Each structure stands twice: as structure tokens, then as C-alpha cells.
């Protein structure tokens, strides 16, 4: 095994090793049990007092969702306002301009929904103030929103009948103070020692060997990058994201960033098991997610290492793999691994140029986002996966001759209806958006969108909508996307792609929580078994394949076969 592969295996193993105890800790936090970080309690209480929130009052699922949507709306308005006037605000040493309305709309939404689709470039598009009080702030709170929603799900799946599912603000606050903030500080310190800039000075000037002077953007990068990964946000400080030497200086920081973006989603899977005292169930979920992840990641690593046949045809040596768009300091396997990791878990940060990946690697990145539940984003990954569980429970319940049950609650028409709506929504958003884009570009090929016509251009547009719907934020950046069509269309997809897959699963969980608890019997289908794992996997595979096969056939698959 070459060292590049060992590096990847090491990164995965390390994350898993850290995620299990961390999951136990998260379960404790949401259960309200004693933890090491209880010294934050007075601070939390102070915040609650100032905001006039009674964090002890239990809410039902609807109240929680109203609270969630309300604070999100406030953040959105705040962020959009700041972005539109940032040029006149302080902390702008580079003199960057204010954003146009459509770009500010897209950016504010994009960060609020934990997506971080960036139609601007960090160096020139935003000021330090915006980076910190808009973007970094949203990176914290959007991740905490997802985690708090997942905490409500945990609570709802307990073995009892209730409509009281804890206090949303309490979960939200604790996600920040007990999980995201402490981890961010630790990671930031590691970054600082690896030379990541942390300054409020403007551009630095260096003189190159030829004697030219070059302006180099810097900024408070080390503060920004930890939460970008820990919160599965992915929005880079700089335009080229984690391929930028200041944002990801070396292989070691590459490891840290990969572990950082992976750890919370993975830990949440285990937290579910610790919280409900169903650890086997967690391992089943972990198994399904990991198989799905590996089915995407391994082929990508192989394909990228094999290089590009079209370039090989020109007589270029492909022994180090398809290096177009990749950083030499990371190499093909680590880049391929990152590209799938960042797409399965809705981070969307990149250390290589996804647009340059082999066609089927690009397809796998899209598939990762179409599923959006193999680990998935901070908290929301589990919510997405929950929808697949409900569908799998329903079909398999029928297959064993019993009204479907999940963790002692009957799954009936209403829950199925919500699950169907959530599934439908992503199909509509991705393909509907794509159809409109395809229609426009066909009608007017002169639109400045596509640098690559044909199949690859199709993939670029498909990727953009997929990324927006999955709240991922990465892109096939060959797409010219900073224009009203893309800003507004993806902005709408972002909002719907965020909140429907949060509200839907929470609604199902809330309804289930209110149902009578049925103790397990020998006729009950156990959901923590290998068989049920296979069933979920089959559901995910079938739903995704059937929904997206024609679109993928016209993009990456057609490109692949044309290439060979």
C-alpha cells in the first residue's frame, strides 16, 4: 500500500476513534447530564436572561420549529443587510465593495442554511467584518441549528409518549457552547501553529524572485477555518478554499481539516445510540453510511490515481494520477477522499478542483449530495437519514406482515406522506432547477454560464443545483454563477433544500413521539440488524438511482463513455 492510501486510512480511523467518545459526550450534553464544560452554565443563563427565554420550558415540535425559523429569519435579514453595506463599514483594509442585492441574497441564505455556496471570492468579495460577524457567525449558528434539530429528534425517539420534546433554545445554546465553540478553539490553535494567518492587516506585499511585487490577501483565517469544517459549512475564507496555502498549509492541516469536518456528523451517529441506549442501532446506521461512503470514495480514489485517458493520449505521464486541479502537497488519493467526504457530509470545502475530476468521480460527488445522508451535515445528516429509515421501515414492515413500527411507534399514512414530500422536494428542486437552466441555455447559448459546452456543461449545472439542494456549497466552478439567474434560483433551492428536510423529519418524529409506545415482540422487525441495514441501503440506492439516473446519464455518464 502506498503512503498516500495509508494517509487516507489513517484519517478515517482517527476520526472514528475520536467520534465514539465524542458521541458519548454529545449524548450527555443533550441529556442534560454533568459534563466537564458545565462552567459555561452561568454564561448560557446570562444569555437566556438577556433574551427573555425560559430554557426550561419544554416545547412541542411545532413550537420548536417556529423558534428555529424565527431566529433564522432574523439572521438572514441581518446578514443580507451587512453584506450590502459592508463597503462603508470598518475593518475593510482592502477596500472591498458592498455586494449587489442578488449576490447578498444568495450569500446570506447560503451561509444561513449551512451551505456556503459562494458566488463571490473571499479575497475581493467580502470585508473582514463581514467574514467575522456575518459569515463566521452564521457558520456557528447554522451548524448549531442543525444539531439542535437533531437533538429534538433524539428526544422524540425515546420510549415514551409525549409531545414535549425539550427546549429548542437550550439545545441550540448547548450545541454552541458545549460542542462547536470549544472544539473550534482547539482546532484554531493547531492551525495557528501551522502558520495559518490571523491578522486584521490588509493585503501583504511580497517581492518575488523575479523582482515583481505581489499583493497577497491575508486576514483572520485561523479563526474562520475551524468552524468552517467543524460546522460542516465549507465556505472558504479565500476563493480557492482549502486548496489555498493559507487556508490549508500542509498535509498535516489537511488531516486536521478532514477530521474536523467529519467528526461532528460521525459523532452524532454514535450520540444517537448513547442517547437512546441503543448502541447497536448506531452501529447499524454507521455501517450503512460507511458502506455508502466507501462505495463512492474508493472508486474515486482509483479513478483519480489512474489519471485521465484523454490527457494520457497526448503523451503526458499519468503516473501520479489525474493531477489537473489538485494540489501537489495533497496528491490524488487524499484529494479524492476529501472530495467525497466533503460531499457526503455537506461541507463543501474543497482542497482540489471538483470540476477537473474524472467524469464518474464527479458523478460520485453528485451522488453523495443527492443522497445527503451518508453521515450528512451537522445534525441534518441524521435527519435526512431518518427519512430513508421511515421509508425502509414502512416497506419492510409490510414485507414481514405487520403494520410498520419504528422504535415502538407505528408508522402510518401521515408519516409516510411527510417522508414522501421530503423525498419529492429534493427531486423537484434539483431536477426542476436543472430543467429551467437547461431550457435557458438551450434557448440562448450565448449566456455566459458554461465554459464547457456539452455533457460537462450539463454536469456543471446539475452539480450546482445538487450542491444547493444538499446545502453543500461546493461547485463545479467552471460554471459562471455570479449572475441573477444562478444567485436567485440557487438561493430559493437553498432555503427549501434546508428547511423542508429539517421540518419534515422533526414533524415525523414529533408525531411518532405522541403515539402510543408498543413494546417489542418476536414479530416486531428489529431495526438494528444487518438485514434492516441492507434494506435501508437498498431504499437509498433505489430512490436515488431511479430519481437521478436519466440526468446523470446525460451528464457524467455520457461524458465518461465519450471519453473512452
Amino acid at each position, binding site marked *: 500500500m502506498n503512503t498516500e492510501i495509508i494517509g487516507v486510512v489513517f484519517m478515517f480511523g482517527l476520526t472514528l476513534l475520536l467520534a465514539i467518545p465524542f458521541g458519548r459526550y454529545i449524548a450527555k450534553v443533550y441529556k442534560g447530564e454533568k459534563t466537564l464544560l458545565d462552567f459555561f452554565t452561568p454564561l448560557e443563563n446570562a444569555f437566556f436572561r438577556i433574551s427573555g427565554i425560559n430554557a426550561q420550558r419544554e416545547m412541542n415540535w411545532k413550537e420548536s420549529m417556529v423558534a428555529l425559523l424565527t431566529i433564522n429569519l432574523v439572521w438572514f435579514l441581518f446578514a443580507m443587510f451587512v453584506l450590502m453595506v459592508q463597503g462603508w463599514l470598518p475593518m475593510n483594509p482592502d477596500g472591498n465593495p458592498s455586494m449587489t442585492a442578488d449576490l447578498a441574497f444568495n450569500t446570506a441564505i447560503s451561509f444561513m442554511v449551512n451551505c456556503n455556496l459562494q458566488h463571490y471570492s473571499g479575497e475581493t468579495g467580502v470585508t473582514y467584518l463581514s467574514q467575522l460577524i456575518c459569515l463566521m457567525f452564521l457558520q456557528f449558528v447554522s451548524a448549531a441549528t442543525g444539531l439542535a434539530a437533531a437533538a429534538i429528534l433524539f428526544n422524540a425517539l425515546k420510549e415514551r409518549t409525549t409531545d414535549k420534546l425539550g427546549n429548542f433554545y437550550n439545545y441550540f445554546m448547548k450545541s454552541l457552547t458545549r460542542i462547536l465553540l470549544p472544539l473550534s478553539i482547539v482546532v484554531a490553535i493547531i492551525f495557528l501553529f501551522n502558520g495559518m494567518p490571523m491578522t486584521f492587516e490588509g493585503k501583504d506585499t511580497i517581492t518575488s524572485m523575479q523582482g515583481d511585487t505581489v499583493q497577497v490577501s491575508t486576514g483572520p483565517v485561523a479563526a474562520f477555518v475551524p468552524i468552517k469544517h467543524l460546522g460542516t459549512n465549507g465556505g472558504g475564507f479565500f476563493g480557492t478554499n482549502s486548496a489555498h496555502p493559507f487556508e490549508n498549509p500542509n498535509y498535516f492541516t489537511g488531516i486536521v481539516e478532514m477530521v474536523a469536518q467529519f467528526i461532528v456528523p460521525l459523532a452524532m451517529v454514535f450520540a444517537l445510540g448513547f442517547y437512546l441506549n441503543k448502541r447497536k442501532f448506531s452501529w447499524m446506521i454507521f455501517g450503512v453510511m460507511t458502506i455508502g461512503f466507501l462505495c463512492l470514495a474508493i472508486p474515486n480514489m482509483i479513478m483519480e490515481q489512474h489519471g485521465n485517458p484523454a490527457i494520457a493520449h497526448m503523451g503526458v505521464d499519468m503516473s501520479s494520477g489525474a493531477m489537473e486541479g489538485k494540489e501537489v502537497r495533497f496528491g490524488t488519493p487524499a484529494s479524492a477522499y476529501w472530495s467525497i467526504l466533503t460531499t457526503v457530509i455537506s461541507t463543501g470545502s474543497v482542497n482540489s478542483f471538483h470540476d477537473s475530476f474524472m467524469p464518474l468521480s464527479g458523478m460520485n460527488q453528485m451522488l453523495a449530495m443527492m443522497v445527503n445522508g451518508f453521515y450528512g451535515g451537522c445534525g441534518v445528516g441524521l435527519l435526512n437519514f431518518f427519512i430513508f429509515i421511515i421509508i425502509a421501515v414502512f416497506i419492510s414492515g409490510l414485507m414481514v406482515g405487520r403494520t410498520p413500527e419504528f422504535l415502538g411507534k407505528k408508522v402510518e*399514512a401521515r408519516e409516510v406522506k411527510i417522508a414522501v414530500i421530503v423525498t419529492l422536494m429534493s427531486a423537484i428542486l434539483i431536477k426542476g432547477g436543472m430543467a429551467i437552466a437547461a431550457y435557458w441555455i438551450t434557448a440562448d447559448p450565448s449566456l455566459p454560464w458554461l465554459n464547457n459546452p456539452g455533457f460537462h456543461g450539463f454536469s456543471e449545472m446539475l452539480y450546482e443545483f445538487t450542491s444547493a439542494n444538499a446545502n453543500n456549497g461546493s461547485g463545479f466552478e467552471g460554471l459562471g454563477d455570479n449572475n441573477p439567474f444562478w444567485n436567485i434560483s440557487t438561493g430559493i433551492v437553498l432555503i427549501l433544500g434546508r428547511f423542508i428536510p429539517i421540518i419534515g423529519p422533526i414533524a415525523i418524529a414529533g408525531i411518532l413521539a405522541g403515539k402510543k409506545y408498543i*413494546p417489542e415482540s418476536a414479530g416486531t422487525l428489529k431495526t438494528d440488524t444487518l438485514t434492516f441495514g441492507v434494506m435501508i441501503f437498498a431504499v437509498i440506492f433505489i430512490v436515488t438511482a*431511479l430519481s437521478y439516473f436519466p440526468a446523470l446519464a446525460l451528464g457524467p455518464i455520457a461524458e465518461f463513455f465519450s471519453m473512452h
Partner: protein
Amino acid sequence: MSKRQRKAPLFQRELVNEALKHAFVKLNPRIMVRNPVMFTVEIGTAIMLFVTLYSIISGDGSQGSPGYNLAIFLILFLTLLFANFAEAIAEARGKAQADSLRKTREDTPAKILLRSGDSYTESFTIVSSSKLKKGDVFLCETGDTIPTDGEIIEGIATIDESAITGESAPVIREAGGDKSSVTGGTKVLSDKIKVEVTTSPGESFLDKMIALVEGASRQKTPNEIALTILLAGFTLIFTIVCITLYFFAEYAHTQITIAAYISLFVCLIPTTIGGLLSAIGIAGMDRALRANVITKSGKAVETAGDIDTLLLDKTGTITIGNRKATNFYPAPGIQLSDFTRACVLSSLADETPEGKSIIELAGKDAKNVSIDGATFVKFTAETRSSGVNMPDGRRFRKGASDAIRKMAETAGNTFPLETAGRIEVISTDGGTPLVVAENDRILGVIELQDIIKPGISERFDRLRKMGVKTVMVTGDNPLTAKYIAEKAGVDDFIAEAKPEDKMAYIRNEQQSGKLVAMMGDGTNDAPALAQADVGVAMNSGTAAAKEAGNMVDLDNDPTKLIEIVEIGKQLLMTRGTLTTFSIANDVAKYFAIVPALFITSIPALQALNIMQLSSPESAILSAVIFNAIIIPMLIPLALKGVAYKPIGASALLQRNLFIYGLGGVIIPFIGIKLIDLLVSLFL
């Protein structure tokens, strides 16, 4: 039990003919719309009709040749007919079944009695049974056929119910008590009864059942609704796929014909399960009917599959009728043969099943015993013993141990220690001791035991594997009950049960989230039958019991509950597995149609044509043909139901996932390829 076999072939000619007719009638969009999946197919078919007409009339070849369009239209039309036929044949079978029961009660003369004050005159007028109203009273004498359902208000009679139950042995029905109900179509073999009509014409359980099967009052069951939503969801997903594909194809400069679009769409949406869904539901009720169970709603059958707890009466279900004598234990100093003689003497006049079983056990020893001139002492609740007084002055008594003991001790005789010990042993073994005395001297003890039905513990085992808890209900004391419960293998028991105990037990189970089924016949069972999630009333039971339950068992067979649970499970499983199969089929259909759509504009996509189908037209035709013929091919499975095996839920899922999931992926690849080979001969 000599039950009449109700297994008819799946496709009887007259039923098929009727179903074919109905398949066309059901094309009416107003009926179709109840089934969203097939309704969308109907819309697609209508569009294809226009396209076909257009291509024939205009001669415009841009939408494919007229022949090709016509072929697609015809196949889609067939798909609709097949789906309708599936529903119609299920209905026809159910109706035929119900009709055969109903025929037994067609117009028979009824001897209607006139009311005179509170009683009824003995004179009657003869009217047609169809004229009988609820509350009328009619007379039935030896040889009469009972004109309609009712309750005996006076008299006792032996009745031949074989027309309904298939059971040839006559049964006794009498006024009062729990055996007072008679069914129309059955025949009085002896005696005379006065019967009050309990249902208005057209409202009997059978009539309700027929209405359910015919669809007039058939409501979708909760699981069926949920499944319909899921299928509608899939249909919508594929609608989006097809609509957006138009724009994608425009981008790829590909012209897709309407026929190809509609074919893709119809192939993708879950037509297989959509077409068979209602047939499966009807077939479930039909299977219940074939088991001689009349269900009042489809929901009841479905609920039966979910039952967690089953309340079963001990007598008749777990044990064969009554106790039997199994052993004679003489007291010390008494010869066994003498004791046996005494037992026989004390029992010869005893008409109870226990008494008869003592004679049976004695065998040939009972032959030369005579009780000529003896006087019988009947059992009374006071003495709790019975026996004979012989002409020679000997008095034989047998009865409950404490009663005989008291008798003996009053007369100054001792109760032998050994016998007392034996009594103890018999009691703890779940038996009943009967002590026999001669002239107040203890002779010994007879052991009576409940005989557990052969094979019943295997059935309970099967139930346990299904996850159903069995509870035995008995009037016995807790000790006896516990013994029998253990021996028969039930999970729990209610001893010294009163009707309110049953009720309390059911409530308790339901409170902890369980679904309970029970069977009952008496009026005092009615509240519990109503409370239970599945209440099966015996046909012989009172009208109140039948009204309270949601099923009626025509055979009066208490073990029927087990069958009902399996029928319920089969119903759900058939839906689940066919849904899986239907959706899994789509993988192959994609591989057939998608390369066919883009063959001209994107030749590279030919690599996806892994089945090597000969041409785009034949690929599309093959996929649609496969999609159509799979429906009739699966009708037998839909009607018979997927076999239920009690191997545990996970193992069952594994099995069905393998057969219907993996099979559903693979079979269409083979099927479509074969059809393509055939179709390409004609293209």
C-alpha cells in the same frame, strides 16, 4: 373435522368471463381515479390514442411510425385492462364465494307466528323468507329449513348446519344461553323452535360482506392508504423525471417522441403493485371467507396481522371438550377390580361427559355390572356428589374430595392418608380428583384430566414465533390452570375467569400498546368482543356477540383465530413484497429505455444498453410489454397471497428482500431481453 373444502381453482371460466367484462367497465375514469397510479396510465393511454390517430391521419412520421404508435397504445390499453382484470377477478371470486353462501338461504317459506299479547299463537301463516322483517317470529319444525338468521326464543332443536359450515354432525341450539343463534339456510333435524328475526333483509353479515367485496362500501384500510401515498409519491417522482427529461434532451439536441416519453413514464411508475393493490385487499377478505370467516371490514383482516395477544378459551380450543378419567387409585386394602366396579356403579347413571369417561376407562370391567333396581342420586350443588343406592342397601357416592370426606367423617370413618396424598398429587398435576365411597367408607380416588388437543402446543409455538402471545381463559382454579397452561405451552392464563376479568385483561394489554384478539360466543362476551381489536364471534353465539365482534366464524372453531392472524399477515406481506418487486423492476427498465432514447444523438450511451436490445423501438416495446404482462402473471400470487413463514421478522425480511427485491431487479433484465428477441423478429 370433516370440513367442506372451499378451494376452487384460481380462474374459473364463468368468473373469468365476468371479470373480463368488468375490466372494461372499470375503464371509466371516475372509477379509475380511485387508483392514482393506474389513473395516470389511463391518461397516458388516452394521449397515445390521439398520437396514434394523428400519425395515421396526417402521415407525419416525426412521432414514429403509425404502427409503432398503435402498438404502444394497444400495450398500454392492455396494461389497464390487466390491472382492472386483477381487481375484477378478485371481486368475482369473493362474490362467488359469498353467493354460494347466500344461495343457501334463497326464498324459503317461513312460518310466521302472530303475536298475542306477550306470547305467540301456535297458528302460523306461510310467507316468503324475503318478507321477514327484524322482530318477526317464525316457527321451525323437524325438516324445515330455517329461513333467515335469528335467535331462538323458545324450544330446543338439533340443527344441521352443514350448508354453512361444512360440518356434518348436527348441533343443538336452544333458547336462552349462548347457543341460541340460528343461521338462515340451515335445517332443523328434530324438535320445534320459535325464532325471532334479528336482521332486516339485506343487512345480514353475509350481505355486508358481499357489499365489501363488491367495492360499493369498500374503504381503504390504513396501511393501504399509506401505501397508496407512497406509490403516489413514486409516481410523482417519475413524473418529474419525465418532464425534466424533456428539457435535458433539448439541451442534448435530442428529439424524444411522445410514445417514448409515455412508455418511459408508464414503465417507471409502479404499475405492477398499483394494478394489483385492490385485488390483494379483496383477496384477503376472500381468503378469510374461504376459511369460513365473515369479516365486517377489510381493516379487521389487516389488524389481525398485527395482533400481539390472543385470548383463547381453554375448553374446545386448548383442551378437547371436557375432562376425562385417566386413572383409578384404590384406597389401601381395596382391590383395584372392586374399586373399578364401584366407580362404574356410581357412574352408570351419570350422563355427564366425566361420568361417561369413567365407564370408558373401566373398559370391559364395566360390561357385567348391572344396576337394575337401583335408585340414582343426582348431583346437587349442595352435596357436590352423585351416585346410586343399590337394592341391596349399598350406597355408592362419588364427588369432590372435601364433600365425600365430610360424609365419611360424619359417619365416623377415617379418610385414608394415602388417598389424601394421592388427591394432592392429582391436584398439583392439574387434574381433578373424584373420591368414591361405599356406605360412607372411602374406596379410592379417580383422576380426571383435561386432554390437551394434539398439535396445539406446536400451533402456539408457531404463534410465539410470529410474536403473538397466547392467553388461556378458563374457569378452573389457578393451580389447574397453571398446569394446563404449561402443558399446552400458552404464555399466560386467566384462571377462575369471569367475563369482567377478560375485559380487564384486554384493557390492560391495550394500555401497554398491544393489539388483542379474542373469540367468544356468549352475550356476556359481547363487551370484551367489542373492546378487543379483533373480536371473532362464533356463528352459534348470540346476536349480541355477533354484533359486538368484527368477524363471525361460521365453523364455530376456536382455533380459527390462528388462521385469521396468518391471513392478516399474508395480506400485508403480499402488498409489501409486490411493492418491492415493482420498484426494483425499474432498474432494468431504465437500462432498456434510456439508451434507446439517446441512441441517435449520444451514441456513446449505447454502452448502457447492457441487454444488447436490438433496436430503440424494440427496446421500448419490450419494456412496455414486460410491464404489461407482469401484471397478469402476478395475479395468482396476489390472489393466493405470499406464503407466511413464522421464522422471525428479520429472517422473513431477508427472505422476501432476496426473492422480491433481488429477484425484482434481475427478472426484468431476463424478461425484457426475451421479449426483445421475440419482438425484433417482427420489426
